[in-house]
């Protein structure tokens, strides 16, 4: 497999370490009332679709970037890849504009 690194172009997937479901970047607030329940779902229930899946890959043998790769699990076709940091910052921005983040 080849991962289209946003900065480095196509790279051998062997350079990467796989984590899984990109929802893991949305870590629940540990201080919230329902934290136990939220963490159970966060830790143990991942998206496992037969089809398009957004997932985290770490360029461990490369530039040490975490990527969010969009991939079809039935064909392995890759539809895109972004720097996870950019995605996380965007979400932060969106959240703080909405004033939701404590």
């Amino acid at each position, binding site marked *: *497999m*080849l991962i289209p690194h946003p900065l480095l172009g*196509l790279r051998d997937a062997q350079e990467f*370490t796989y*984590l899984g479901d990109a929802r*893991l*970047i949305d*870590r629940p607030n540990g201080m919230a009332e329902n934290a136990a329940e939220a*963490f159970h779902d*966060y*830790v*143990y229930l991942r998206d496992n679709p037969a089809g398009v899946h957004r997932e*985290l890959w*770490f360029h*461990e043998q490369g530039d*040490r*970037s*975490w990527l969010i790769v969009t991939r079809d699990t039935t*064909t*392995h*076709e*890759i539809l895109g890849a972004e*720097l*996870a*940091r950019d995605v*996380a*910052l965007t979400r*932060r921005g969106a959240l703080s504009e909405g004033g939701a983040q404590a």
Partner: protein
Amino acid sequence: MTQLSGGLIDRGRTIRFRFDGKDYQGHPGDTLASALLANGVTLMGRSFKYHRPRGVFSAGSEEPNALVELRTGARREPNTRATVVELFDGLEASSQNRWPSLKHDFMAVNDLFANFFAAGFYYKTFMWPRAFWEKIYEPAIRKAAGLGSLSFQADPDAYDKGFLHCDLLVIGGGAAGLAAALTAGRAGARVILADEDFRLGGRLLAETHLLDGAPATRWIDRVQAELDSLPNVRVMTRTTVWGAFDHGVYGAVERVSDHLPDPNGAVRQTLWRITAQRTVLAAGATERHIPFANNDRPGVMLAGAVRAYANRWAALPDGPVAIFTNNDDGHRTALDLAEKGVTIAGVVDARPDARSLGRYQLFAGGMVTDTKGRHGLTRIEVAQNGQTTWLDCGALGVSGGWNPNVHIASHHRGRPVWDDGLQAFVPGEGGPVGLSAAGAAAGQGATGAALASGAAVAQAALAAIGVDAALPDLPQAESEFTAPHPVWHVPGKGRAWVDFQNDVTVKDVKLAHQENLRPVEHLKRWTTLGMATDQGKTANVTALAVMAELTGQSIQNTGTTIFRPPYTPVSMSVLGGGDTGANFRPRRLTPTHKWAKAQGAVFIEVGQWMRAQYFPRPGETTWRQTVDREVLATRKGVGICDVTTLGKVDVQGADAAEFLDRIYANAMKSLKVGMVRYGLMLREDGHACDDGTCARLADDHYVVTTTTAQAGPVYRHMEYARQCLWPELDVQLISTTDAWAQIAIAGPNARKLLERVVDGVDLSNEAFPIMACASLTVCQGLRARLFRISFSGELAYELAVPARYGNALIQRLIEVGADLGAVPYGTEALGVMRIERAMPQATS
């Protein structure tokens, strides 16, 4: 033997070789199979189950019968197809799956009891008494099964692997492949052309077609010369592309020196991982046969193979040749052979309206119904219009049409589709992205069509990646393809083989139908159809057509089994690559390794690291004695231990403190500059996953340590936290594990010893208390870091210096600490001291 004139062998040179202990001669250009045929050898192997005598059946990698053990000693290579072994001087081969000899095989007794060994018989018996399965039945089955045997010696040859990248990969160097490579090469694209044969040309080499009025080899040579001259084209012969993987990655094996008597230390085979933007599959087609009673005798061959042996290698089995066909292609064999002066015993054409294309006896609407000849074909029985005749012949060429080699196009579980016009499966949807088939592999088997298709498919493939390619001028070729008339087997009483190697007959297919194992996967598994070393290349389509006939389903709906890599079997050695011994995986050495080794240390593997486990001294006979001494000496005087393997991460940035506060279970923000704190990390599920220390070197600068085993995962997690969870924090990370040699100095005399190496720093308890840290210099100006931390409960420090000085430092510490009782200790003593002091042990 029948030796013919012409052929693509160099009669000017002679090659000596040996088969089953007998000496023979052949010529450059020969394969083992062609040379054996030229020497009059037709019996080459025994089948898997019934140990039936078998001769060569094909002229390529689809060969089910002529399997040999090639070479001797540690280089012995079982199950090698004689049809693809390039002859070399001194070649030695032996037949296999027989005892005591190929001619007189004791296990051929199986054939007499063949009726008992029908498909699936072993599922129905051998169950009583229970203990007999492992003790009696199974060993007997195992001994009779299998084919060749391994030498049980390590492979002495060298193997290599590598990576190639190209715009266009062309698989197959026949008419279509050459046209594709030429098209792309001239357009300036980066091209790789790979062909499994040792000579480019593919099927053209076996044919007498003229291209632009001249022998095909003239065009092939011209194209090859041009491709060789183009710096953007890499021509790889003896290279089999064996699998298609995701995103245009292909596995290929180049047989670098398999054609040499001895690689002489050079690489034998290279595994290439080829990344191609686009791929043209021009892998040709494989002829299929038509099962009839006793169709497996040596001398019964594919008609196209008979033609290949005659045209390319100028060799045939003894005696007249007969043909059994359901299409025009069978006639071409008769024509070519007749041209060479071979007697044609007759052409049996299953088509009632068949017309003769030359001067030979034609049996239109005929069928071959039986054969004779124990170790080699002598006669065939022909049935026509209700009458039977026996014809004398030494060889029978059978042609049931051609199956496009759709394998690699189907490696992504793409299912081939049945083309009624062609009477063949062609590549279907769902194949590897970026791959298109051309030539015979796409059902374009006529030479002219193959050439045109190769060029056109390459042009389209390049257009998709933005390369404009002009179609090259292609030679004029005769057109010669006609679709076969569907005849899938000859009905009759005798056993008619479908899969030769695994001895699957039409009756077995019928039995599978009778017992309701009708889905094609059940058929395969129940009968073992297509599970032999040839993966049923000449058998599967025929068998599923027979099943379709029985169920009344269409061939398309009956479907194929799944095509999976490799296309042809690949040696374990080349897949396993080069280093299988001590360099199988990286080994990490500590900065003091050289010194420890000189001290006679016993090393232990910790992750990839080799750490000193203990340092035995003369007279110590058990590890326990040594470890006890090391512990006591440390407790009493001072012990020294290399702890470099602990992971180290340099953490900087304005928010470094906040970041570490979040990473650890305990607080780090409150840590003062110049101090160290023990830290515990938790997984998201609450389990402890790592522990270590966190030292604050400056307001915005920390160094944290991890356990040896978790150095990688902890760093990965910290990057994850930094990039994904808290991207707003200003923090920078980098591993410094290898940069610093870190030495633990523990025991009541630790301070005294340190004072002797540290450059003018007050190490008193007041100035440098427990959990203090500092940057300083040692041994006259060497930059160093000192941490007052202990994992063994003693007065202890860890001293870090640039790794290159670690070896000298530990030596120096031992030297200057001699009077303080300085001794080195290893991981075992470290563990003992930690446990004795109830310090937490690193998680595993």
